[in-house]
């Protein structure tokens, strides 16, 4: 770029790349272009090429190549979202799929086109690095970061620091297995910190700085485990050193002999919390701490590359929102279910549901992406967040503008009032797309969504999280679902196993298997009976999860299997 142009404004909510970052990405694209050319010419075999394409987010799935694009800590700017829409329109089938890891997947990508797609992404400071392989994956974050009223520390600056530390970290490119980190700055865990390899919760330190709660060894997959609390006082300046020590211990002792025992959760269980902590402390004591020290100046320098929104709402913004809610009960319901309190007076965070009744959870068309990008520009400082629940968020919306935002969303089929309710289902791609799947996840989600379409009914049922995975890898978080649904294969046919009582939050728990797996055509009815049983037995304003925890599985078992 000629240096006569004015520096572009920094993006709101995420780190603004500099020329070094851009040059690196440009190189990386050309490197992959060369690798693709060699693969097509046959000088690279599939076995040689596969790890290279995976390092660039390109999987071969059931029907075609799938490209997984990183959305670091779930924050996009409008320019990036428009580029994703453009790619969907030009190179895919006019839609994209937002995932539980806050990324975006395209399902119909051609190998030949991938270098061009990566080049387009690089133009808007995006890539597909850290979306595959046994490295530290794209760090996930609270979708209300920097906005939520209950937040103590905005975790995105630290998420960016972790991104820079972990990207292409030479020691951590070939870990025993993939490694996932989530970070939050709120005591209310919205990132499933306890289900990650490492979960961090930022909070103020007694000295006025920042410190972290550290959870380790959580995970889903074949062996679901709630992470253990390693410490509650990790000082900011030791953040990288301590994480370096944690990952080094894993790299050294984690099992490489058995893929099913390779995650850090297995190591932590094997050593015990104390045993693991001792090894980490020993590593930490022995390492060159100065090299990994994170001084306040560095944090400040990274923070300076984040654009910050200039929050100024008119004094009567809240009053205007109240009036609009009173005038329109449908809007009022949506505000009740799909917004989150903002720290700044006159502002609110709006959740855009990607779960229309009967739709595919997490899918958005190019036109919808463009519309959300436009709304973000007009009403939310050009910033969009992707949630691990597969929805989108406009973080900073003026309360007096919320009605206009909602009307625009409604016109695009994006105003389902179901956040946190039974229609807000997580579903992995399942057998409709995924090469590893046993069963289809999406059709179950669609049927449940249609069955419980009524917003009144959903509000009556109240908070409930249904999560569906098409196989034991648990990409759909079924272990953490209040109701979890797992697809299993019985002689080539689809069956579904139900688990109850999982929770991803601060009260994390792993769901327990209810009984024998059900055939596909019996699963939705069984869940409807479960929900009925809950409605009969709930006390007061209890959530489904509370009723289950209070009364246990027996009555739900009866409800499911009595007539099945």
């Amino acid at each position, binding site marked *: 770029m000629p240096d006569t142009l004015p520096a572009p404004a920094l993006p709101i909510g995420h780190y603004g790349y500099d020329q070094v970052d851009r040059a690196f990405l440009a190189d990386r694209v050309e490197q992959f272009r060369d690798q693709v050319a060699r*693969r097509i010419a046959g000088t690279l075999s*599939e076995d040689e090429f596969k790890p290279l394409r995976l390092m660039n987010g390109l999987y071969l*799935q*059931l029907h075609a190549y799938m490209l997984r694009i990183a959305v670091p800590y779930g924050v996009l700017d409008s320019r990036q979202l428009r580029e994703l829409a453009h790619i969907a329109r030009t190179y895919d089938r006019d839609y994209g799929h937002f995932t539980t890891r806050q990324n975006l997947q395209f399902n119909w*990508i051609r190998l030949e086109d991938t270098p061009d797609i990566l080049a387009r992404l690089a133009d808007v400071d995006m890539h597909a690095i850290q979306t595959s392989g046994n490295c530290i994956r794209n760090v996930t974050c609270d979708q209300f970061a920097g906005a939520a009223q209950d937040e103590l520390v905005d975790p995105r600056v630290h998420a960016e620091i972790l991104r820079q530390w972990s990207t292409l970290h030479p020691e951590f490119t070939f870990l025993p297995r993939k490694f996932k980190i989530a970070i939050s700055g709120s005591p209310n865990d919205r990132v499933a910190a306890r289900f990650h390899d490492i979960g961090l919760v930022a909070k103020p330190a007694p000295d006025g700085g920042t410190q972290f709660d550290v959870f380790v060894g959580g995970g889903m997959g074949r062996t679901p485990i709630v992470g253990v609390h390693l410490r509650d006082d990790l000082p900011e300046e030791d953040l990288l050193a301590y994480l370096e020590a944690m990952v080094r211990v894993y790299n050294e002792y984690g099992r490489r002999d058995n893929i099913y025992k390779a995650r850090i959760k297995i190591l932590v269980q094997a050593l015990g919390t104390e045993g693991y902590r001792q090894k980490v402390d020993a590593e930490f004591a022995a390492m060159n701490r100065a090299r990994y020290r994170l001084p306040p100046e560095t944090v400040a320098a990274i923070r300076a590359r984040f654009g910050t929104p200039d929050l100024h709402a008119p004094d009567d913004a809240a009053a205007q929102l109240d009036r609009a809610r009173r005038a329109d009960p449908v809007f009022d319901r949506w505000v009740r279910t799909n917004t989150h309190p903002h720290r700044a007076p006159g502002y609110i965070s709006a959740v855009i549901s990607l779960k229309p009744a009967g739709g595919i959870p997490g899918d958005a068309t190019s036109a919808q992406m463009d519309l959300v990008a436009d709304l973000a520009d007009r009403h939310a400082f050009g910033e969009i967040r992707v949630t691990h629940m597969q929805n989108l968020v406009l973080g900073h919306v003026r309360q007096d503008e919320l009605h206009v935002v909602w009307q625009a969303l409604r016109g695009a089929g994006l105003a389902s009032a179901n956040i946190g309710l039974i229609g807000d289902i997580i579903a992995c791609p399942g057998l*409709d797309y995924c090469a590893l799947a046993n069963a289809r996840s999406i*059709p179950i989600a669609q049927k449940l969504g249609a069955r419980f379409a009524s917003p009144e009914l959903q509000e009556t049922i109240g908070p409930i999280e249904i999560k569906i995975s098409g196989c034991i890898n648990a990409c759909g978080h079924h272990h953490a679902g209040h109701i979890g649904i797992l697809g299993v294969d019985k002689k080539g*046919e689809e069956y579904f196993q139900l688990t109850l009582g999982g929770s991803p939050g601060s009260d994390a728990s792993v769901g327990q298997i209810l009984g024998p797996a059900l055939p596909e055509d019996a699963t939705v009815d069984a869940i409807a009976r479960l929900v009925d049983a809950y409605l009969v037995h709930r006390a007061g304003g209890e959530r489904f999860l509370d009723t289950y925890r209070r009364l246990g599985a027996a009555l739900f078992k009866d409800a499911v299997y009595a007539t099945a």
Partner: protein
Amino acid sequence: MSDVRNNRREAGGSSVITANRLLDGRIVWQVGEAAWSTLIDDARIIPNTQIEAAIAQATARQQEDGLVGVYGVQIESDDATPTPVTVRERIRAFGPTVHPDFTPAAELEAHA
């Protein structure tokens, strides 16, 4: 992509051979030596007694033919046109069930 589940074959049955195209990843079915179609209806049906040899042959030519992940898929014995016995392979053959408009047949028409 090949899958261990596809190696379970009944001795008396028949199979077809499938792969993904290298350039675009799309699913194809073997019609004849070096000839492949996106439609399973066109596929050559091979008795399971001969399938391993046929897979080995197709695998040996895969780079030349622009393919990856060649494997065999058992089909129902009583159908006039090939229908895979597993749900997984039916979805590969007929497209994602959640997008009825994305069947390989519909695609061919769209491009015709």
